[in-house]
């Protein structure tokens, strides 16, 4: 079942993907699968051990699912302070 979500990339992920946000239709069922799929779409994008993901402005686990119409935020490792 395909879902359409908007995806946003931040900081190093945005630079690596070459895009800050995009609308994608995907068969992925978890956020981890969705990120895997986006790695295929953007050659520069890379994995990162401390990366985080949020859906509709809430931090969630990579194993979580998502719904059609959600906004998915991919955060590279944070470095505040």
């Amino acid at each position: 079942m395909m879902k359409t979500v908007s995806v946003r990339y931040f900081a190093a992920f945005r630079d690596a993907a070459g895009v800050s946000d995009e609308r994608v239709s995907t068969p992925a069922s978890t956020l981890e699968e969705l990120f895997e799929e986006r790695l295929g779409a953007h050659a520069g994008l890379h994995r990162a051990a401390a990366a985080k993901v949020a859906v509709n402005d809430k931090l969630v686990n990579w194993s979580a699912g998502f719904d059609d119409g959600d906004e998915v935020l991919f955060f590279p490792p944070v470095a505040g302070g």
Partner: protein
Amino acid sequence: MTFSIAYEAIDLATVRTALEDPACGAAVFFEGWVRNLNEGRAVDRLEYEVYEPLAISEGERILAEAAARWPLRRAVGVHRGGLLELGELAVVVGVVAPHRDAAFEAARFIIDEVKDRLPIWKREHYSAGDTVWVNCQRAAGDEPPVTA
């Protein structure tokens, strides 16, 4: 208990005013300043990218966690976004409590969590002319993107 993001110089007077409490004897402030060196490289300036909606909600969640754990009366955090010059204030945490144990422990907890959890990214601009997203360069391995 407010956490905010500032895109201009942080106003310490406002931070202090927010913390005034006649019942509190102990205040601890942590301040992070832009250093002229990081891991041996000369730094000219810093840039913080902040995803503000989540930075504020997560920052306020951290303050609430601290207030649940220690007898704090007030706690404030401010993090900069945008471009910062050397010596500028990047982040401030201030807490007040009746006694100093709680004030020290809570301030330490808050800054540790802020650095760990807030969606904020730092790009260093080096004297050599290049820029680097701190923490991300060593991230191009093949670990899965699993949460901590």
